[in-house]
């Protein structure tokens, strides 16, 4: 596998038990694509398309039923590469008995960061997400937006080479969203890889280089965003939303 490839899915399939013994529901079917290092890559698709399953496989939260997956140049069975991955998801719940600074210290330590680096990095991130003055406060007192900002800081604590954002703008206010986009731009500038799963297509259009589209667990498109937004027949540009609707309609037909 090439060293410039940050993530590679090779013929990945996954199914879940469907309630009835012996019956299984396919979540992913023969999905293959790669994300180059330094790319901001979007994973798109309607609900139950298999996006979160793919992310979970990438993060070793579940195992693929078939196929190979590589993360930062290594097979996903090698958990050490997770030390170079940051992850933020939409329904983040943190232990309510920690305060923000302790929480970052906790996740920093479990990301195998040297102890002396954690403190500095944690202070820097709390300042960045606007929680510096609330660092010593129990998380139990935080609002949903503050929890999401803390989740962003948590995802960045280990200065990740690969940042996985699953519906990150959920619950974030305007300032929080702006911070998030600053993070994405900064990651791009530093040659880091970002995988963004989002239903907010304006954000995707604004920040992503390439996208993969999943529908019913199958990969239906992968490539630069403009290959999706440009109408193949007329050559005219259209919004990503329109492009996706056209794609779903065409595939349904």
């Amino acid at each position, binding site marked *: 596998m090439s060293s410039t490839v940050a993530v590679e899915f090779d013929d990945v399939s996954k199914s879940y038990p469907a309630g009835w013994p012996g019956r299984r529901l396919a979540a992913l079917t023969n999905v293959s694509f790669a994300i180059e290092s330094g790319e901001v890559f979007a994973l798109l698709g309607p609900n139950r398309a298999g996006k979160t399953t793919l992310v*979970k496989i990438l*993060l*070793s*939260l*579940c*195992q693929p039923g078939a196929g190979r997956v590589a993360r930062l140049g290594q097979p996903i069975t090698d*958990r*050490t*590469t*997770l*030390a170079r*991955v940051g*992850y933020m*998801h939409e*329904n*983040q*719940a*943190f*232990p*309510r*008995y*920690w305060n923000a600074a*302790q929480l970052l210290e*906790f*996740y920093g*330590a*479990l*990301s*195998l960061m040297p102890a002396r680096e954690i403190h500095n990095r944690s202070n820097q991130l709390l300042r960045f997400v606007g929680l510096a003055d609330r660092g010593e406060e*129990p998380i139990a007192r935080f609002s949903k937006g503050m929890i999401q900002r803390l*989740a962003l800081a*948590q995802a960045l604590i280990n200065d990740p080479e690969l940042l996985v954002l699953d519906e990150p703008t959920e619950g974030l206010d305007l300032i929080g969203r702006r911070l998030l986009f600053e993070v994405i731009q900064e990651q791009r500038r530093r040659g880091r890889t970002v995988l963004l799963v989002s239903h907010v297509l304006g954000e995707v259009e604004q920040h992503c280089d390439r996208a993969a589209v999943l529908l019913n667990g199958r990969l239906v498109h992968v490539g630069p965003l403009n290959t999706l937004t440009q109408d193949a027949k007329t050559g005219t540009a259209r919004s990503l939303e329109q492009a996706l609707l056209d794609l779903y309609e065409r595939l349904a037909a």
Partner: protein
Amino acid sequence: MNLPIAILTIRWMFRDTLRQALASGVFWLMLCVSLVCTLFCFSAGIQGDPVSLERTGELTEFLPRHGSSGSDLDKAARSGVDVVRGELTLGFGAVRMPLGRDAEAAVHLLQLLLAGGVADALGVLLALVWTAGFLPTFLEPSAATVLLSKPVPRWSILAGKYGGVLAFVGFQAIVFVGGTWLALGLRTGVWTPAYLLCVPLLILHFAIFFSCSVFLAVCTRSTVACVFGSVLFWLLCWGLNYGHHAALATPQLQSVAPAFQGMVDVVYWILPKPADLSMVLFDALQADNSFSRLFDYQTLQSLGAFSPELSVLSSLVFTLVMLAASARQLATTEY
């Protein structure tokens, strides 16, 4: 397996659990129970002129004060019989009870009630109930996914949590046993070091049954399942353990079908043995002078049906199997 990473994870999860315990009401609730019991012990005292009966291994001849007239007591005392004269007071003198034997025996009886009744039965049960929510809350997908996507082995996360809960319960056991021992010692002047053996035995008892709670937590992620499951399992084990010994110690039950007897034996050796653990505690506290045993354990031992060492060892094997199964379950659980 990378051992330094596993150790680091266990250390952090241990800290996490202690913080969780401290932040929860459980810590203060258990501390309150210990405080009430310590205060109860601190309210106890020995008054009057208690004699100290010599303990030579045989029951010393003595005459309790109550039930004997004054002239009988004087006669007895003149003829060399020890006469018990003191009183055990509780509630700072609100309740007064004539000593049955000497001060040591009265304090010993209090310690047995605290260790066997409050700590070993009620304490272990309440600790199981109160700590049952620690793991399911932490294993909720919304809370666990970020943690499980860290480069640390899942079994070490579970080991840290288990160790943290044991340390928390161990701390509470030390406070309870240490506090009551100190209070009774200060008030009565009777110091019984054997009472301190309750601490490791209570932790052992809890550790065995908490492993069942851990297994239920990783399988169901439900606090209700952990509470009811572990308490029912504890009661079931008590019943089976008691039933096994009752069947052997009762001659009328000897004629039960050998196949059934064999099955009971197998179940007895597989499952934890809370009644046996209580007997080990009973022995450690030398409770024979105050209470009669449920069974004639010497008969059981002669039948090869009870061995304290094997009993504890097999309960520990059960604990290890449950923890290994829990670790495997967590390692293969898909989030």
